């Protein structure tokens, strides 16, 4: 831990490689306390509703566990299933010596001023762990919730899937309806061990003036699978993230899916980077970006280091009502025999598609929203149906704002 702090110290002023530079002095990093909830249903109704939008069900129906952090305070942290461990990360660091072997090992604290600030003023975060061979079929839900105006929320999360385990996490980030201005700095480290499977679905519901800088890195060992879904349909002032995953063991697979909506005044710079280091690894990055006035940079970067790897990148953008979409797909093959491809397209809805649907009875508006819905509905093989439904729901909620 000392090492993490001293490394973070060095990067206090270090600007990030991408995204607008944020003046951290404008935000309060002071802790805000909230009482721990014995029962999730004690939550005030308006908080509850916001969390529900981000995928968190206060009744914990079909959930294997829950973690909720409001501002800097952990409100609730509980596993409801054997083989599944959920801790506030600070508690884990105190009680479980082995956590040191994971903490800060993937996301370097000196990456930029945001990782530095997160480590130096760490509030909390979660540790979610599936024990070896545990099959946690119901998702764990987590929510990082920002309520205090002008506050900087800092979290460090760790997700560990031990060998042969299966884990699904749905994590929502949300703000209370009255919050106008805030900053979220989040570090997340993913460890997917041999033959383990993790699906991680993140739904962001920020506010108009929020700045958001998540930093995440994952490692997938032999035969492991990492499904990473990201949905951001609500306005946000400035969001920049470039999660990276290393496929370290033979036959490891990572698939990233993202669905982004750029509102007027929003700037989203979202990418995904997968490094295929081992034999027979597979990677896929699929993104759908829609703007109705915002700016979206959709990045994707695949690095193939071994012959026989397969990787595909697909970046599609739709400009509905003004705005900018900048697709930047990158492929780097470092060995003979890599199989890598990409597909990028930015455009508007084709008139002939609208007319085709009109000839099946839909009005022009109905046809347009049907096409947009189709555009955003990507098949995510391996994702439980209920989680897919959550994604579709999050997307559908913003449909009106899009048109």
């Amino acid at each position: 831990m000392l090492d993490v702090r001293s490394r973070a110290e060095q990067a206090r002023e270090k600007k990030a490689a991408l995204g607008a530079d944020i003046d951290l002095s404008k935000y309060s990093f002071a802790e805000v306390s909230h009482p721990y909830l014995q029962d999730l249903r004690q939550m005030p109704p308006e908080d509850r509703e916001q969390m529900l939008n981000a995928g968190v069900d206060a009744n914990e129906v079909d959930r294997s566990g829950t973690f909720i952090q409001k501002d800097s305070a952990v409100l609730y942290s509980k596993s409801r299933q054997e083989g599944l461990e959920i801790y506030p990360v600070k508690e884990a660091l105190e009680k479980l010596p082995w956590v040191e072997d994971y903490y800060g090992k993937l996301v370097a604290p000196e990456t930029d001023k945001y990782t530095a600030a997160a480590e130096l003023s760490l509030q909390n975060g979660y540790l979610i762990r599936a024990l070896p061979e545990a099959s946690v079929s119901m998702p764990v839900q987590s929510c990082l919730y920002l309520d205090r105006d002008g506050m900087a929320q800092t979290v460090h999360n760790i997700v560990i899937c031990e060998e042969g385990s299966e884990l699904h996490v749905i994590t929502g980030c949300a703000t209370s309806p009255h919050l106008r201005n805030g900053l979220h700095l989040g570090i997340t480290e993913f460890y997917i061990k041999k033959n383990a499977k993790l699906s991680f679905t993140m739904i962001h519901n920020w506010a108009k003036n929020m700045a958001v800088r998540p930093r995440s890195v994952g490692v997938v060992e032999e035969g492991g699978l990492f499904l990473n879904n990201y949905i951001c349909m609500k306005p946000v002032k400035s969001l920049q993230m470039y999660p990276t995953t290393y496929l370290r063991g033979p036959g490891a697979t990572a698939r990233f899916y993202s669905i982004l909506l750029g509102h007027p005044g929003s700037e989203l710079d979202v990418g995904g980077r997968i490094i295929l280091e081992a034999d027979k690894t597979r990677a896929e990055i699929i993104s759908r970006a829609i703007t109705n006035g915002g700016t979206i940079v959709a990045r994707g970067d695949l690095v193939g280091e071994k012959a026989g790897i397969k990787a595909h990148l697909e970046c599609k953008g739709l400009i509905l009502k003004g705005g900018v979409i900048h697709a930047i797909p990158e492929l780097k093959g470092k060995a003979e025999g890599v199989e890598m491809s990409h597909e990028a397209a930015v455009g508007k809805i084709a008139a002939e598609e609208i007319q085709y649907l009109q000839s099946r009875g839909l009005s022009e508006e109905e046809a347009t929203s049907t096409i947009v819905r189709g555009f955003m509905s990507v098949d995510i093989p391996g994702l439980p149906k209920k989680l897919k439904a959550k994604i579709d729901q999050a997307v559908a909620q913003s449909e009106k704002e899009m048109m």
Partner: protein
Amino acid sequence: MLTIEDLQVKIGDQVILSHIDLELKPGETHVLFGPNGSGKTSLLMTIMGYPGYKVTHGKIAFKGQDITHTPIHERAGLGIGMAYQRPPSIAGLKTRQMVQICAQAKGGRKVDPEVLAREVKFERFLDRDINVGFSGGEIKRSELLQLMAQDADLMMFDEPESGVDLENITLVGETIAKLLQRGAPRAKKSENEPTVKERLINRTKMGLIISHTGFILDYLTVDKAQVLYNGVLSCKNNPGEILKCIGEFGYEECVKCLM
């Protein structure tokens, strides 16, 4: 009834159809012949209401209503439907959803996509994105499936048999015959079934079929055949006679001799 009077249609500044007169009574089906580029698809697209096909003269009426300038979806609502030659594909829209959309075209009709799909051997395509990666023959069956759900009163088929293999041609032919209430007469299975004559009288669906080969005529009888040549509807006659003439003398001669 569909009535087209002295229709002129332009794409951009170019006249592609002129002096088109056509009348299709309830229960009637016509077949439309014509060489490539003669304007057959354009005529169907114009009837469907595609704004790129500008009506610069004449009028189109359907069920007694002037629809010359009615938007596409309202025509669909009135009961006009079309099986396209080259429909666009829509990523993310499942064929199953498309079938449900079609079923709503004329107001809330309830359909079971599985049951309809089975009729055109299309069950395993229901969960695929509409037309995405469909082969030529699959497109034809997908279009038929949509029309089956739509239950339109005027059905237009743009080359329904082209690109369809020998096995599926029967399926396509019989499906169209059924849609147009022109299935081959068969022995009565029960007392309540209509007689051939009753069926003829009760026939209401209108059909307009574009064909190059006339193979479709092996599966259903049509009332009239017409030839579209250089944007003009040139002759109306018995389909067999016209086909024979085109085969022997070619379109140009054929149009002359029958005019």
